């Protein structure tokens, strides 16, 4: 059955919704007797038996054997954060602007920066207190460099939540980057596909 007609919440007579035909309860003893006879010889019980047997024969199993198989999660899913690297140079994308620290509504991001020997702002410390993080996604949305994004890693088991957000764990390792394993984040705050074509030259007279 196609689901489209049911998305129309307007329950009008011509819509796909209809009232289920429910018989009135029998009032007299004779009616009750007739219902018993009806139910006894109508074979409704065998319909039920056939339905479950049919499902057993068809053998369409919907079980996901979880640790071995996993369901795909949506690209906009907001699990534990990741810090990405630049593709060509392998530098951290984070420029230490501090916008994520500023916008974080639960105040759980903390960063320290310094000016390194190339006069480039370098992030020395970056931590997220996951005990307070509400996974709202504002940090990923506000980041101008697509440096902090949400990952899909939702299976976390450790003695301390802080273990999931050590900066080295969040940052893409260099060998994975070289192997091309770093995935661009398609979810919250990311640029849409084909956005390069939409970039226009800024008029000089502006």
């Amino acid at each position, binding site marked *: 059955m196609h689901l489209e007609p049911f998305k129309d919440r307007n329950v009008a007579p011509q819509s796909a919704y209809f009232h289920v035909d429910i018989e009135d309860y029998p009032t007299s003893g004779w009616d009750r007797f007739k219902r018993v006879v009806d139910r006894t010889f109508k074979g409704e*019980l065998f319909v*039920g*038996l056939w*339905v*479950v*047997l049919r*499902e*057993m024969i068809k*053998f*369409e*199993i*919907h*079980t996901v*054997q979880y640790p071995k198989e996993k369901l795909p999660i949506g690209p906009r899913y907001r699990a534990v954060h990741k810090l990405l690297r630049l593709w060509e140079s392998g530098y951290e994308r984070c420029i230490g602007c501090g916008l994520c620290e500023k916008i974080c509504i639960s105040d759980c991001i903390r960063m320290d920066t310094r000016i390194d020997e190339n006069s480039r702002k370098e992030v020395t410390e970056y931590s997220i207190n996951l005990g307070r993080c509400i996974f709202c996604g504002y940090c990923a949305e506000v980041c101008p460099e697509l440096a902090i994004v949400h990952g899909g890693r939702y299976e976390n088991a450790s003695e301390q939540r802080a273990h999931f957000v050590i900066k080295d764990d969040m940052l893409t390792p260099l060998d994975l980057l070289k192997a091309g394993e770093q995935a661009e984040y398609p979810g919250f705050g990311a640029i849409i596909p084909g956005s390069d074509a939409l970039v226009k030259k800024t008029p000089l007279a502006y």
Partner: protein
Amino acid sequence: MDIAFIIETIAKIVVILLVFSALAGLGTYFERKVLAFMQRRLGPMHVGPFGLLQVAADGIKLFTKEDIIPQNVVKPIFKIAPVITAATAFMAAAAIPFWPQFTVMGYTVHPIVADINVGILYVLGVMAIGLYGPLLGGMASANKWSLISAARSAAVFISYEVISGLSLLAPLMMVGSLSLVDINNYQVGGITHWLVWSQPVAFILFWIAAFAETGRTPFHLVANDHEIIDGFGTEYSGMRWGLFFIGEYANMFFISFVIAIIFLGGFGDGTIAGAFQLLLKVAFFFFFFLWTRAAWPDVRPDQLMWLCWKVLMPIAVLNVVVTGIVMMF
């Protein structure tokens, strides 16, 4: 009574005990698998190939679990109740011929512990004593749910004893013997001689009563999980609870044997083919127990009583009367 007879009988008892204890465990495995497949699930999969060792895992768990006796229970009765259920289930098996007689190295083996001439009466009677397991266990448990379950089990089992007894009366009138071997031999002529053709009403009635006596799903109100937790089993843990379970599943197998022997020709003429046919029939009835559990809803206790006394019992009595009239003329 010679020594050989005693040894043979003890050997048969041990074999039946071992085989049906193991089958009760395997029965839980099949139940979980069949229910899972009917609900588009996989069932147990992780312990062993296809979850087959789940039975062993459950057994180890039940055996090694702490045997908790709650504080306010009536201790001796609480302790003995599960034993009653399991013991009566296996005692009932004494008069059931599981297999036609066969000869091994010139020695004829009768795969029946005691071919007593009141066979079916004995089987039904001992199964009826099984009522005391849930009844005493529930009443001794100091738990309201268990008490409700005990009351229900007393009502249901006693009521449906009437149905199973009355429905069997008509075929027994035709056979003229209470021994299950005689009943089997009465239908030896093949499929057209099966009692189910001459006594279809009795067959249906006894089948319905079998569901009530084993407490299986349409009549599962003795331990209805969504109403009264596990009923009489609520306060039990470890192997005492496991004994209830073994008793229930052994009962399912034995009542399947009884139905197959009385109404569906049993093992027929006693050839190997007939013996395997008996196993197939038993397998079907056991499967049907699981099948209905997946398909049918439970009935309320009052509906069950209504069905028993106002519908099934009059039909059973009418069946006996009609059979008598037909036999007379």
